[in-house]
């Protein structure tokens, strides 16, 4: 087998893994869009916020320490305790649920029935707000996040593939974990939406708000729930990316990686988000591998979008959307 082909296979596998991470971020968008028609620009910032909170809780940071110190001249930093990862995740989840309740109560309850672009705009306001709160609460230094996920080359795969091709493939353990967690997450979501009462209510709302209302489903409750679930997905994404790069402001930019996935997979389709993520991941990595060196590299940022754009021109309804029949 030629070297290039072997390399391409490695790139392909890594693309799949990267795709899983993209899909994870995109999932958060899909959940909210499907249930409430809100294009949640704040999803990336939510990931940042949840990761910041997680680290803050784990390290026993005093929230708003900087503000308190500046205002009262105190010198607070840490409570002096450390919370184990699992407990901290639960506590962070509680914060995200609280956030969901606040978002629903103070923002979207007042914007029911507005046009999508207005709702979109509100989430932008929310993103700004959360960014400010997150920084004020936990400070803007880079924080190391370690909840015990393995990282680094998977030696087993390296050795096995070396035996096969004479070249060991590089697969990151973190990516493998991410893939497993993403699979679990999606399974859990599917089970939740298919087999629980709340899940069915959520799907009913997604299909038709009015009809759901008329059979006595509380929209308010459903939306809080959806935002909570999206908060949970954001937390998972935040942990994955935060482990890679440390928790810092740039974490909010991962949202940009999810947008082409959404275009490809559709804003309302969970399988679309996953398959779309995989296609984007593989596509951009292979393009960078094959064409990148010819045009000077660093193509990944735009290639994902161009790929999605070309795809949409030929199939405007996205991957899993039904053919749009226009009526008047």
């Amino acid at each position, binding site marked *: 087998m030629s070297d290039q082909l072997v390399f391409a296979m490695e790139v392909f596998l890594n693309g799949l893994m990267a795709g899983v991470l993209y899909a994870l971020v995109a999932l958060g968008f899909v959940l909210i869009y499907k249930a409430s028609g809100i294009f949640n620009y704040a999803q990336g910032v939510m990931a940042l916020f949840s990761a910041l909170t997680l680290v803050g809780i784990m390290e026993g940071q005093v929230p708003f320490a900087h503000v308190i110190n500046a205002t009262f001249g105190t010198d607070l930093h840490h409570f002096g305790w450390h919370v184990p990862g699992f407990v901290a995740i639960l506590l962070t989840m509680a914060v995200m649920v609280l956030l969901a309740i606040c978002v629903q109560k103070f923002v979207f309850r007042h914007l029911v029935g507005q046009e999508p672009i207005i709702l979109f705009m509100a989430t932008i306001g929310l993103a700004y707000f959360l960014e400010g709160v997150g920084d004020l609460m936990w400070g803007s230094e880079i924080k190391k996040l370690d909840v015990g996920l393995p990282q680094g080359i998977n030696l087993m795969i390296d050795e096995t593939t070396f035996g096969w091709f004479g070249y060991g493939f590089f697969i990151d353990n973190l990516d493998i974990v991410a893939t497993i967690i993403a699979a679990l997450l999606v399974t859990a979501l599917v089970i939740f939406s298919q087999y629980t009462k709340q899940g069915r209510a959520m799907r009913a709302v997604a299909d038709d708000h009015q009809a759901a209302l008329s059979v006595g489903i509380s929209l308010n409750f459903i939306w809080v729930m959806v935002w909570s679930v999206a908060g949970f997905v954001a937390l998972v994404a935040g942990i994955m990316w935060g482990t*890679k790069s440390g928790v810092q402001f740039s974490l909010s*930019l991962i949202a940009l990686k999810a947008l082409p996935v959404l275009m490809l997979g559709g804003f309302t389709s969970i399988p679309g988000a996953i398959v779309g993520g995989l296609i984007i991941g593989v596509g951009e990595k292979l393009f960078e591998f094959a064409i990148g060196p010819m045009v000077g590299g*660093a193509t990944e940022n735009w290639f994902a979008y161009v790929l999605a754009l070309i795809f949409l021109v030929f199939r405007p309804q996205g991957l899993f959307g039904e053919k749009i029949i226009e009526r008047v």
Partner: protein
Amino acid sequence: MKMKLATMALGALMAAGPVMADLVFPDLSYRTGPYAAGGIPFSDGYNDYFTLLNERDGGIGGVKARVIECETGYNTEKGVECYEATKGEGALVYQPLSTGITYQLIPKVTADGIALHTMGYGRTSAANGKVFSNVFNYPANYWNGASLVVNHLLEINGGDLGGKKIALVYHNSAYGKEPIRTLEELSKKHGFDLSLIPVDHPGQEQKSQWLQIRRERPDYVTMWGWGVMNQVAIQEAANIRFPMENFIGVWWSGSENDVLPAGTAANGYKAVTFHNVGSDFPVFDDVQAHVVDKGLAAGAGDQIGTALYNRGFYAAMLAAEAVRTAQEIHGVADINAAMMLDGMEALEITEDRMAELGMPNFGPSFKVSCENHGGPGTGAMAQWDASAKTWSLISDFNASDMEVIQPLIDADSNAYAAENNIATRCN
């Protein structure tokens, strides 16, 4: 009614004017945004040094220093706003810590007669004082940095890099592309292979780049990164088990922030630097006593000794020394921007002086002149010890290959002069 208004206006005018003599150092900092982690320690160091001088010595030459901090968020437009807002306050020297803002400010400071000090960043060819009258980038610039990296590798390899492969991982922006030309020249001179690997902003996802490195197996990797790109690159390098001692960053890829998230895997990572690292300097005891313990520290006081804090501290020291020089030249304590320029052009940093300041061997000793605003272009290599969580210098402040760099500086600055009809000075 009219009278009242007039007195009020007069009052406002008086209040706006300088109440007492002071030396103004605007600090265009960024404590927010994607690069906050780099901006905070630098700005803390910059502030703390002046606070130290005020508290301990009562200012510089008896005149208090006043730092006006202005948040830019690494945003060029805010940088311009900050510049315009502070220049009327009697600003002596600007230190924007952003290549983008530097480029905005070069023409502006030149027109306004204020000095701009871009230490290890900004426009490299500003080292040519004949063209850039108001811009200084001593003691070292990007091209020195590139050369220093190569010199270090030459040293390890017994002076011969022939046939070696060096990869440059760089932030795909004007900043990241700076070293390319120098490295290309050096690769011709020393016969090593150079491969260029760009990473697009922000650089969170570098799988492709590091797979490529893993495939091509370069002997050394050097990095021009900033922000999240650094942390991810070091993590990915660890992931592919690239030997850390063969991975060398420029000074902007060499702070604690960059290596800490990777944990022990980052052990042995190297970065070139133009100032010393660590907190083992007498002056920091003074900082503790006069600044931190009095609750006057700009930040939380926990950054002392980190690479970027030291850099900010060093920048402030160089500015203060330039003020002192200007005070000596002009015999005036409360100097203005024009005098500051003279002070910067006549600045001389000696080992004795640094020792006097409680900062022995904190940076190279050098002398600025009208022609040379770039200083000596020397630097040292620092290495990260992950268990002790400290940087330490593993070399002296060595010279870079000016034979290669000077022609590049001359060419670029002359092109700028031609484009903007600037007559050369210092003749």
